[in-house]
């Protein structure tokens, strides 16, 4: 059995087609300078503070920066354009930690480029929503056919753009 990982949660909010493709092993992230930069921003912003944080993996999801003493999950992103997806991604981390017996964890969502920090907490209601989201995700990824293109403005900056839009 494969886990629902945080990337699934993130893509669920951004694009179901991307979610389906990703789950079917069609990865495009390596093609994208944006993705590469995103990863770099994470590394660069934390190189000096790295001692406090450890990288942990729970049920397939990798949390890059977790501070076990203060029980804080850090997530660094490039821009807040997809804030809702980022928020749920962090909530999902907190939920996963909770399921492994680590309670009262808080999250900090950080956009170092824009100098914005946001606190994220997981409420009981969020937990129910997450349960529903996971169910939805399972439905989508088990679908036989690939969900259609969503034709959003942000398709242009997606690493799957060429893949989705190339026709002939």
């Amino acid at each position: 059995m494969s886990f629902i990982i945080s990337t699934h949660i993130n893509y669920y909010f951004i694009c179901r087609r991307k979610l389906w493709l990703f789950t079917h092993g069609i990865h495009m992230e390596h093609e994208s300078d944006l993705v590469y930069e995103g990863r770099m921003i994470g590394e660069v912003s934390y190189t000096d503070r790295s001692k406090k944080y450890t990288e942990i993996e729970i049920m397939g999801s990798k949390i890059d920066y977790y501070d076990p003493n203060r029980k804080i999950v850090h997530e660094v992103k490039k821009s807040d354009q997809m804030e809702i997806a980022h928020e749920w991604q962090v909530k999902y981390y907190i939920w996963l930690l909770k399921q492994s017996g680590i309670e009262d964890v808080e999250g900090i969502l950080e956009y170092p480029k824009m100098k914005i920090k946001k606190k994220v907490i997981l409420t009981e209601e969020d937990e129910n929503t997450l349960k529903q989201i996971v169910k939805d995700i399972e439905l989508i990824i088990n679908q036989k056919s690939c969900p259609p293109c969503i034709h959003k403005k942000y398709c242009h900056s997606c690493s799957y753009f060429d893949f989705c839009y190339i026709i002939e």
Partner: protein
Amino acid sequence: MYIILVYDVDEKRVSKMLKLCRRYLNWIQNSVFEGEITEVKLKELVHHASRIMDTECDSLIIFRTRQEKWLEKMVIGKEKNEISNMI
């Protein structure tokens, strides 16, 4: 994008700087490199470089242009390293 990179760093750090730049660009003469590079790779290079440098006394200068063809290059005297992808 096409860039020319020059650095002036203390002797103690020269070799580190040289090794770093060789990974991304073509060496053309002492402390000078040039080559095609993407925006992110340049960011990465600059990030690594700034960790080597002592910004109080070292410097790194980057000249950038969109494409190599918009750069007129003249070499007087001995060309120390001709850049070519045919070796």
